[in-house]
């Protein structure tokens, strides 16, 4: 059941051109624009730094849109009602969606890595490639939970807007497109409260930037995971009361 669900969820994602376009092509295009400048930042080659930035952007984008938008659509189209009437355990679609989104994110990373190697001539130890990959895939968890909360709280047409309204400003404020030190003072002060800021630090750390307290970033993400899970459970219960009680 879970295997079939995963396959179906993967097909659903891959066959939506907006999703494949924004999920795979957009980070590559951004890398060409941002990442091919030479120089260094925070003590590492800028090509590498930007690769970590846009890899972070790519996986979080997939987590938020595959969960936020599809969950909202399933509620809007009443597909969730049909699923509830089947004997499927509600955990199966959730696992299927997660595996599908993580596989998709891995594909997006591989594409970015190829661009980094072929276009920017990046060479780094295998350990760093490996670290960047597993940290980012694991780091999707709080954002999957965040997507789930958005998908359950907002309606189907609002979900796309909410995801973009949250994600784009958060990406800028977390230093994904522009180094944090170049941002206005108030954003600079606010950034350390954002989950993406911490995932960014974990990614930059993987390619060689050293931070004194990377463990704090991990804790921040764990805290956000708890927060979004709680928010989702609240929203699911609210939905149950409204539509299925």
């Amino acid at each position, binding site marked *: *059941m879970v295997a079939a669900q995963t396959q179906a969820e993967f*097909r*659903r994602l891959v066959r939506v051109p907006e999703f494949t376009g924004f999920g795979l092509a957009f980070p590559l295009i951004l890398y060409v624009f941002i990442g091919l400048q030479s120089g260094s930042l925070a003590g590492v080659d800028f090509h590498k730094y930007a690769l970590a930035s846009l890899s972070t952007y790519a996986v979080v984008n997939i987590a938020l849109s595959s969960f936020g938008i599809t969950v909202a659509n399933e509620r809007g189209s*009443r*597909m969730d009602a049909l699923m509830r*009437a*089947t*004997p499927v355990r509600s955990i199966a679609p959730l696992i299927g969606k997660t595996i599908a989104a993580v596989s998709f994110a891995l594909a997006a990373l591989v594409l970015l890595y190829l661009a980094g190697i072929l276009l920017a001539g990046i060479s780094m130890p295998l350990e760093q490639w490996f670290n960047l990959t597993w940290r980012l895939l694991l780091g999707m968890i709080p954002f999957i939970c965040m997507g789930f909360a958005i998908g359950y709280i907002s309606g189907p047409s609002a979900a796309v807007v909410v995801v973009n309204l949250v994600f784009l400003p958060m990406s800028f404020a977390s230093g994904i497109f522009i180094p944090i030190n170049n941002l206005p003072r108030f954003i600079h002060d606010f950034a350390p409260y954002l989950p993406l800021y911490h995932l960014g630090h974990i990614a930059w750390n993987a390619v060689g930037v050293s931070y004194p307290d990377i463990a704090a970033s991990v804790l921040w993400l764990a805290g956000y995971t708890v927060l979004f899970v709680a928010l989702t459970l609240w929203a699911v219960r609210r939905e149950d009361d409204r539509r299925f009680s």
Partner: protein
Amino acid sequence: MPASTESFRGSTASAEGDGGAIVQLVDAHKAFGRVEALRGVSISVRPGELVGLLGPNGAGKTTAISLMLGLRRPTTGKALLFGLDPMDLRARSRTGVMLQESGIPLTLRVREVVELFRTYYPHPLATDNVVEMAGLGEFQEKLVKNLSGGQRQRVYFALAICGDPEALFLDEPTVGLDTATRRSFWDQVRSFKQRGKSIVLTTHYLDEADALADRVVVIDHGLIVAEDSPEAIRALVPGKKVTFQWPGATAEALAGLPVEGLVIDGARVSLLTSDPEQVLRILFGRGAAITDLEVAGAGLEEAVLVLTGGR
């Protein structure tokens, strides 16, 4: 799984008075805020039976089906599916459902959706079988989003039967379908029934319920107002339906006639009577300038109309 199926079938008969009932509502009430959608409904569906739930919009038909499926909970009273809580996965794996307006993944092919839903059930039918029974052969490689409304409805039917359910729930399955598609749909339902399955359906097209149902349950304002075979329900109301145009038609002008289910819609009048000749004699005696007169045998539709107060 077969062993456990047998064992809880046995316990069904002992735990519940109505031995072997597929679906049961027992004095079910359902309130949405201050609105009472169901006000004490008891329905029991036996194996192999096709039961039609009829009644006007807002009568409570969909609410009744939602309770039977565990999509909603009764405020008071009980809902049982195969003698179990309808939310129980063991009950659900023996049930197939077509809901009003429910979505399916638009970017999957027809065959892929059927194959996905098959994996939800313990003893599914073969995909080729399902595709054929639902008349989807030529569309099976199409993406769901490229299907017409009628073709999509067939997909919903395929998903409802793919688990080889013992009970099938169809909530307004033919809304928005053209006549030919509707006819072929009912052929599919009929052949499914011939395999000994129980079916609960709601429909607006009462001639369809008349042709298919073993039993009809008429619901109005959240209560059952009649429950019997279509023939018996039809016999509850006078035999003929009379319609005509009469610009002078008012409630007073038509008072004192031996009729039921009188509806005056501008100059258009329709009524039911067991003695149409007498009614017309009286009207002509009153000097009514009647045009466009029709007298026809009353059907289930007229019967339900009378039973539900002409709504």
